[in-house]
């Protein structure tokens, strides 16, 4: 735990993130470039033909949507239990990107399913739980903006973040139960041929680095604007 605390104060975080950002940015660009190249030179899938290429933008977005909420849940826990000022900032900074990934997951999922289903929306288990995840994100962000007082907004959002985190697996389970009740089938079925696995993994890594890069920049932005606010208020 000691290591974590060392980087928890804003000044140390600025130094650390300053050092890391060039690398994560480079890794993002590199991975996504390779992922795209591999993705587009892949043979058509025997079942889905070339629509399988859409998987390379759907799955990474969907995965990052859930990981981002995981980040919010952990940061909310730290904020509530150890009252870390930085963990509030980290949780708040992650939410918009999580919501974006969820939305992208929904749009690409709908595009991917369209040729197969013949409709733009199919009440398929995965897509439905991502639609609900999007609402959880919107509720979380709405609560942050609704409460003016910084410290109270942080505590309230941390509580909601945790309550949401406990609920998301339950929501996913209930949606899956619901789809089996009405026999909806899921997009990703069956084992993935290795030739598709590599582009997918590379794209997922690319999306992950992209998230970390944007997230760190957003945290730096919040730290700088808080410093500006204290200066304006005539602080030390």
């Amino acid at each position, binding site marked *: 735990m000691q290591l974590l605390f060392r980087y928890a104060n804003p000044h140390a975080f600025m130094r650390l993130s300053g050092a890391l950002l060039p690398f994560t940015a480079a890794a993002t660009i590199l991975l996504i470039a390779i992922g795209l190249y591999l993705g587009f030179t892949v043979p058509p899938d025997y079942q889905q033909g070339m629509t399988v290429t859409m998987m390379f933008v759907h799955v990474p977005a969907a995965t990052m949507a859930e990981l981002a909420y995981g980040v919010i849940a952990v940061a909310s826990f730290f904020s509530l239990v150890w009252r870390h000022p930085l963990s509030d900032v980290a949780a708040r900074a992650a939410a918009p990107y999580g919501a974006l990934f969820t939305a992208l997951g929904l749009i690409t999922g709908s595009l991917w399913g369209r040729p197969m289903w013949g409709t733009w929306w199919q009440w398929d288990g995965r897509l439905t739980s991502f639609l609900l995840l999007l609402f959880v994100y919107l509720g979380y962000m709405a609560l942050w903006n609704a409460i003016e007082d910084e410290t109270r907004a942080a505590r309230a959002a941390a509580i909601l973040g945790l309550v949401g985190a406990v609920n998301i697996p339950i929501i996913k389970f209930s949606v899956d139960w619901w789809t089996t009740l009405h026999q909806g089938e899921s997009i990703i079925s069956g084992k993935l041929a290795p030739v598709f696995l590599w582009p997918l993994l590379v794209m997922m890594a690319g999306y992950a680095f992209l998230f970390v890069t944007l997230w760190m920049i957003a945290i730096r932005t919040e730290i700088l604007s808080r410093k500006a606010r204290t200066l304006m*208020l005539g602080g030390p």
Partner: protein
Amino acid sequence: MVVGRMITSLTAEKLACARGDRILFEGLSFRVEAGQALAVEGANGAGKTSLLRLIAGFLSPREGRLLLKTPEGESSDSDERAQAIGWLGHHDGLKPQLTVGEQLKSFAQLYRSTRDTDAVLEELGLARQKDFPCRFLSAGQRRRLALARLLVSGRPLWLLDEPFAALDKDGQALVARLMALHCGQGGLVIAATHEPLGLSNASIRL
């Protein structure tokens, strides 16, 4: 340490309180002994109410601590301190739809108090209004009902926010008498007020 009926003293050590980024007060120290009253004076917005809410445990201090001494021992835990506090807030905390008698009886049950609510109503001149819904009471009568609640609570440490507000001459005399009585029985009073308490032994200015 269960807070019994008696408190020997409440000591504040270099308390600091902030609202968001704004520092309300800092380095505040005072000590209130059993049987004493402390007046907290200061302009509006100086943090008088915040100090009371800090003592009550609703707010946590940015720095410093509050030490409660009782015959059983001492504690700086806000939850334990809360059990010793009788609260008279800026708002009366009364429900317009409930009658005076109902309100006081349910409060007594909530605070597990054994005081006879009718006798307290009698003492505060509200006996006749026992079955009136609170919306028919005047501001002064509502304040007396809030005071009745304070008496029924049987708590040793009274925190009063503007106790004389909305009270006429004899209402204010009643408050002064109740405070003197409470201190006489070894209770403590900390009151945020504009005009002097009359009987206060000590006062601090924010």
